[in-house]
Each structure stands twice: as structure tokens, then as C-alpha cells.
């Protein structure tokens, strides 16, 4: 029962070829709750809702067993870079 972090990662990698991916299992071990941060070129030109739909679609099989999927970030590489730079300049200040 349950889905592993690795399964979630490999499905997302296969379908969205992310340049950055962070999956954390927040279920406390039962594999039913995950938090996802993903950066992919495929998000380019897509609205937030469409991006979330793409992540949901990539995890269609897994979603049958996942109760809570929290998609924290869906960014394009460009947005990701900007955010990293912003964070760096903020922490330096």
C-alpha cells in the first residue's frame, strides 16, 4: 500500500523532464501525502492552473493512493533562476 517518494519522482521525471525536482513524503511513512516542487521547461507559457493539471496528470496512477498532494512550486527554469537570485540577494542583504 501507498506510494513511495521514488515512484512519484520517477513519474514526474518521465513525464515532465524537470530541471529541478523536490519531492518530500509528508505522510509520516504511509506514502499517502507528498509535497512537490518542480521546475520544467514544459510549464513555459502555461497558467498556474494548467501547470498543476500537468502535475496531476503525470501522477494519475499514483493519485489513486495519494490522499494529499501539495504542489508548492511549478516554475519554468527562467522563473526558478530569478527566484534563486532573488533569494540570494535577499539573504546577502
Amino acid at each position, binding site marked *: 500500500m501507498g506510494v513511495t517518494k521514488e515512484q512519484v519522482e520517477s513519474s514526474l521525471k518521465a513525464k515532465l523532464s524537470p530541471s529541478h525536482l523536490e519531492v518530500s513524503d*509528508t505522510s509520516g511513512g504511509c506514502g499517502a*501525502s507528498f*509535497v512537490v516542487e518542480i521546475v520544467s521547461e514544459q510549464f513555459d507559457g502555461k497558467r*498556474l*492552473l494548467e501547470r*498543476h*493539471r500537468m502535475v*496531476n496528470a503525470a501522477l*494519475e496512477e499514483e*493519485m489513486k493512493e495519494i490522499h*494529499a*498532494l*501539495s*504542489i*508548492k512550486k511549478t516554475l519554468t527554469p527562467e522563473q526558478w533562476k530569478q527566484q534563486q537570485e532573488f533569494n540570494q540577494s535577499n539573504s546577502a542583504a
Partner: protein
Amino acid sequence: MWLCSCAKPLTLQLQSRPPSSIHSHVRRVTVTTSTLSLRPSSTHVFTHNVHFQPKLKRASTTIRCSSALTPQLKSTLDKVITTNKVVLFMKGTKDFPQCGFSNTVVQILKSLNVPFEAIDILENDMLRQALKEYSSWPTFPQLYIEGEFFGGCDITVEAYQNGQLQELLEKAVLS
């Protein structure tokens, strides 16, 4: 973050939930749907779910591919989301959300003083399954603004933080 700690408050709320709230909620939803539906049988689907449920469960295990979203239910949902400017399909009620994610969206909408219609999908499993298809969205809550699917909890939180939600809701309420 607090919105992720869904499990513990859930059990507490389930225990402390007064039975009267269930009835008052069912009545409220009944009013909504019956005023919206053209055929009395649509109301049936929402209110008599207790009697329908065992039958539905059997059907869903034998015919897995069959759609929960019947044309009749679809037209009822069309009416629900277009007649109300803001509709939240959630787990539990406004006053007793049964899940941290639903609670988050309720608190956001309440803090913005937006009148919204909340429909408890835990009351009706057929509605719950049908909505996943209707919105092409696998989880709850599901927020509709002016007849359009806006998003789930994460999208609502993000849009609230960057101000887009306030802007959209303001337009919706004024229109």
C-alpha cells in the same frame, strides 16, 4: 506549516461535531440544489444519498469504468456553479471543515468577507466522484469563481498571497 497537519484536528472535529450541524447542512444544500434544479430527481441525488450509497458502492466496484458524472448531474453542477458566484466543494462544512486543506480555503474566503456557497462532498460519494471528472481535478477542495474552476488549495493560497484572488473575487462580487 499548519495547513499540512490535517490528521489530528480531523479526529477531534469528527468527535466534537454536533449531530445537528449535519442536518442543518443537508437542509441547506437541499434548498440550494432544489432551487437550481429543474427536475425534482436532481434533488433526490443530493438529499437521499444515505439510501443510495450502498447501491452506488456495489456499482462502482463492478463497473469501474462507468462515469459518475451523469448528464443530469452535470447540468445540476453547471447550474450550481453559474448561479453562485463563488462555490467551494469541500470536505466538511464551512463551520466544521473536515480537512486542513478545505479549512485553509474556507479561512481565506472568510477573511476576504466573500459570500460563498460551500458544498460538503463527504455527504455524497456520487457527487464526490462526479466532481473529480467535472473539474478534471483529483482532490478537494475545489473552488469555482464565476462558473469557472479556479483551483485547489495550493493555487488558492498562491493567488491569495500574490493578490490575484482578491482581485478576481472583487470583480466577481461586483459583477
